[in-house]
């Protein structure tokens, strides 16, 4: 007998689409509608079958794995807790509690994603809005250094370019779209205007735009490879729109100037508000990396790269961020929660992870689970576990599981580890 579950939330990316329809037969998902190709991979073929944890590759009882994990963490002088971005708030909260108790360093995937965005926000602020303001009001959209056509596949239709809202009844026709990038991406194809920048020139282009909106003259013919006349045109449009929104991504955070790029963009958006209403929304990559920022902030004061080693929270991007900790060999054990750093970290950092005892909590095997000392196969929030995740615009959305829980959740496992650590 088939059950249909509606209003399911997909947790693949920061879009957190909550209109997914899942059809279940004999405790398996047989059909998923409205989901994009990226999200489909989360639901289809999901196997909720209970699996046992492993220690050194050997299957063991949960109890034994918990004790082993607790011992690794308790013995470590400088444990690192990392990841968090693909699990629910309930588990993230526990990870922070564990870090506090251990005096560990805790970092999230933000440090290799929108960490620089956080640094910029801390320096100059961030004028922002929820996605519904984009749907309803935005008549000018900029996609700067991001490629939703590859990474956030329903973004254009559900929230931005195509969406129809109260002041945008004609959807696409009510909007002007700019894509700004170093190469013509699939997103560039749907833009009205594509500005191709030379690599590492975002900062100069942003500075020029800031100058232009203030009425300053730029004498040179091109900035960042873009004719100044085109930038002037963009500046005028920005000053005269009804409501403008910039979506920004890794093109700004991962290139050489990193947080300086984002700071310049945030300054520009802030200053635009003297002329027209303008907001910026970072394209958060993972489904709940925004939640990781939130809970780590409300419990420690800081969004990523936090050390509890002194008994109180300290903030240290570049010092307590995971890549730096690993590169300098300052972590002697790691607990990886819902993330795959071996796949996503620079080679030397991944190598170092393989040299220290690691504990992994994840519904799937991945490159990090392969070398791990302890692996806990957990449930997948949003598929067979309920929880809360935060969308890219920081709206918290409840996850509605279509399947009953097959395996313990990350929250349950972390709770048991915390209790076991107390006994050590």
């Amino acid at each position, binding site marked *: 007998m088939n059950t249909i579950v509606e209003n399911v939330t997909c947790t693949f990316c920061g879009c957190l689409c909550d209109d997914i329809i899942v059809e279940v037969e004999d405790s398996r998902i047989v059909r998923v509608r409205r989901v994009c190709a990226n999200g*489909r991979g*989360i639901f289809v073929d999901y196997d909720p079958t209970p699996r046992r944890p492993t220690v050194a590759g050997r299957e063991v009882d949960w109890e034994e794995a918990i004790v082993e994990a607790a011992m690794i963490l308790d013995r470590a002088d400088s444990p690192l807790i990392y990841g968090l971005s693909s699990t629910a708030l309930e588990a993230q909260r526990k990870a922070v509690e564990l870090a506090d108790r251990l005096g560990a360093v805790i*970092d999230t995937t933000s*440090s*290799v994603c929108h960490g620089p965005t956080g640094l910029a926000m801390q320096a100059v602020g961030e004028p922002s809005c929820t996605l519904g303001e984009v749907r309803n009001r935005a008549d000018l959209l900029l996609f700067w250094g991001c*490629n939703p056509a590859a990474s956030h596949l329903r973004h254009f239709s559900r929230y931005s370019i195509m969406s129809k809202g109260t002041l945008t009844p004609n959807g696409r026709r009510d909007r002007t779209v700019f894509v700004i990038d*170093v*190469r013509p991406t699939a997103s560039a194809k749907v833009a009205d205007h594509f500005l191709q920048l030379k690599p590492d020139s975002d900062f100069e282009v942003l500075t020029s735009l800031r100058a232009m909106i203030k009425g300053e003259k730029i004498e040179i013919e091109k900035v960042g490879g873009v004719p100044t006349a085109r930038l002037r045109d963009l500046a005028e449009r920005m000053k005269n729109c009804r409501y403008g929104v910039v979506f920004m991504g890794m093109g700004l955070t991962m290139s050489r100037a990193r947080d300086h790029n984002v700071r310049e963009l945030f300054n520009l958006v802030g200053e635009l508000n003297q002329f027209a209403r303008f907001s910026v929304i970072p394209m958060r990559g993972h489904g709940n990396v925004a939640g990781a920022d939130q809970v780590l902030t409300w419990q420690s004061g800081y969004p990523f790269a936090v050390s509890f080693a002194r008994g109180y929270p300290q903030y240290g991007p570049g010092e307590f961020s995971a890549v730096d900790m690993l590169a300098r060999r300052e972590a002697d054990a790691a607990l990886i929660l819902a993330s795959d750093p071996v796949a996503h970290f620079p080679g030397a950092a991944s190598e170092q992870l393989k040299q220290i005892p690691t504990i992994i909590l994840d519904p799937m095997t991945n490159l990090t689970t392969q070398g791990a000392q302890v692996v806990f196969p957990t449930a997948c929030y949003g598929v067979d576990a309920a929880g809360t995740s935060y969308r890219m615009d920081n709206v918290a959305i409840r996850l509605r599981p279509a399947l009953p829980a097959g395996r313990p959740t990350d929250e349950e496992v972390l709770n048991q580890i915390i209790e076991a650590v107390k006994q050590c």
Partner: protein
Amino acid sequence: MSEDFILITGRTREQADGLHKGKDSEAYREATALVEMCPEDMARLAIEDGQIVRLRTASDQVEVPVRTGALPAGMLFIPMGPVANLLIDTETAGTGMPAFKGLTVKMELT
């Protein structure tokens, strides 16, 4: 022969498809072990689609097949993943963020 290129790493749909099949799957390996180059550079260097080239940075080197991509001249693109990451340094300039985009790589024909 060795030529400097600017390397960008990032998402692709195939890379996402591959990771759903499993990071130890053939699909993922194929999706993340390749480099895109623009047709003009390929023609100039007489590189054919699928030909293996070596890319080298101070961190490491990799050998990957070339595919045509929509890129400006002088730029290479590798999908994010373990192959691309061999070329990325751990230096984060005090931010926590390595330089995943815009780094200079040396390309050599094998």
